[in-house]
């Protein structure tokens, strides 16, 4: 099995080709074609123990809704994107939508308690659009860009899920 892995951490971006070959309960590992002395075991769902040249690492994996993986190793966190070269269709093509129409997402589940703007309003980047209450805290959801509020889907009193689109700014 071959995977192209892109890793984003505080030290920057890295990319490697990771090849896995099943050996018993674990895997034999090649990095960019080179065999490394690594022993990888999934010890619990979403918890992977890696012995790399004798160094012991424990990595916790949590999949994000956008298809990336969040990796935690002690105090360190990374975002990984894994591409299976045999399934290029699954590949996402970065931030094509950086300009133009932008969705306003709820960053967490909660209840919409106030709308600060209405459709047609001009807004600045970072301006508060909607107030969502979660866990006794009120949070302003801000505009992703300068522009005009095209639509507001959120209604006062409505319960929203994480990632749910509250409106659009164009």
């Amino acid at each position: 099995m071959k995977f192209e892995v892109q890793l984003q951490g505080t030290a920057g971006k890295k990319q490697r080709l990771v090849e896995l070959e099943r050996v018993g309960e674990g895997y034999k590992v090649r990095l960019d074609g080179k065999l490394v002395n690594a022993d990888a075991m999934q010890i619990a769902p979403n918890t992977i123990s890696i012995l790399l040249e004798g160094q012991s690492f424990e990595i916790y994996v949590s999949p994000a809704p956008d298809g990336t993986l969040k990796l935690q190793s002690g105090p360190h966190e990374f975002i990984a994107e894994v591409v299976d070269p045999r399934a290029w269709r699954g590949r996402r093509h970065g931030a094509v939508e950086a300009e133009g129409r932008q969705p306003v997402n709820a960053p967490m589940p909660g209840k919409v308690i106030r709308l600060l703007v209405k459709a047609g309003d001009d807004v600045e980047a970072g301006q508060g659009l909607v107030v969502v209450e979660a866990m006794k805290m009120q949070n302003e959801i801000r505009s992703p860009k300068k522009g005009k509020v095209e639509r507001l889907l959120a209604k006062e009193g409505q319960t929203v899920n994480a990632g749910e689109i509250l409106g659009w700014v164009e």
Partner: protein
Amino acid sequence: MFKKVLIANRGEIAVRILRACREMNIKTVSVFSEVDRTSLHVRLADEAYLIGPAPSRESYLCIDKLMDVAKRTGCDALHPGYGFLAENPALPRACVDSGITFIGPPAEAMEAMGSKTAGKQLARRADVPTVPGTSDPIENPEEARSLASSMGYPVLLKAIAGGGGKGMRVVATETEFAAAWRDAASEALNAFGDARVFVEKYLISPRHVEIQIFSDAHGRVVSLGERECSVQRRHQKVVEEAPSPVVTPDLRRKMGDAAVRIARAGGYVNAGTVEFLVDASLNYYFLEVNTRLQVEHPVTEQVTGLDLVKLQIAIAAGHRLPFAWETITPRGHAMEVRLYAEDPDNNFFPSPGKIIARNAPTGPGIRLDEGVYEGWTVPMEYDPLLSKLIAWGNSREETIARLRRALDEYTITGIRSNVGLFRRILTEPEFLRGEIHTKWLDELLARPRPMDSQLREGTEDAAMIAAAVWQASQTGHTADSAAASEQKTSSWKLAGRREQLDHMP
């Protein structure tokens, strides 16, 4: 002793109370809202009853529903925990009316001590210092100046109508007084149309130090020593420890005596906390009384060896406090951090959601009080406190080392937590020296964040391998390749067999 206790709370404190009851052979009844069916306090209770929808106003705050469950199930006592109704005098009153013992102070003591103004009056009567100053405006600048020198500089001039820092001046010395008075008054007049100003003692970098008190129903009141809770984010305590790094045995005795006097003056019974501000010269000033068990009670438990929840239950049942506790002194050191479901990288936004994986620290000197488990979805409706991680040791240094070690072992995924914040706090030189005050953390967080601790060589490679292994386990890759190879061999076999069949006569 009680036969059955209703726990009018949820989360870690409900679990904490359940455990105390179980150790005392008391049956427990939990209540829960619609989103708490799978919560730990429901799973661990002897009995549990639904009391309404998610909003606490319609469930955990409904006194009539709690009373109904308590009476229906034959409870003879009720523990309120902290938060929700714990400081609402209507709850002890309702308990009295229903013939149920309230595990906490009587309603009258709650009223006499609970509010800031009532508490302040009580403190003055009990001869306990409060932050010096006037709550009435002073008209005459000369009178104000003499008052300022009597309370000692620095002082704070505050506009009666003030707000947002306008009409407010810190005066460091007497020579600055006249000018500052003019400025504050004119600024207040311009901003609020009211030039009246009052004077208050300005405490430089005060510490938050609180005294845990216990009173029985027979007139004995004891102090169980102090907790320092100066590390706060926007007035919310996040790290608590006992003993305080600055409190001397002499100061401990004085503050303990002051707290006991206040408790006596208010006719207090059961567990309570008297909060003080302590300035750089170790003068202490009464702040307020919390008429309930505190979130941070475990640090006192670890340095006194007492179980405060069991003690609350025993006192409510009429037991006496032992005489010997009047001279109790802390042993060793304990420290607690509050782990919240919030994202420190995103302005501490709450982060409810499903806990995908979790690794809880164990080992010497570590205690974890919590109401969560792997696979549980943290509801969005309540306080985001997940767990309280408590460490103790012989010294403050050993305790901090243990806490750091435990934080390294602590992992929670699926939701964000503020564990990284504590990794940072526990390495800050000022914190290690105990040089903390109530604004310290807010100031620290305003400073640029230092680079993450050094990445161990190989971490990134290990992370990339882990990502690939995880992906392989998810996409049915193993199944795919196994099926593919099986099919490969079997097609040869099939062909061979077919050939042989063909050759059959």
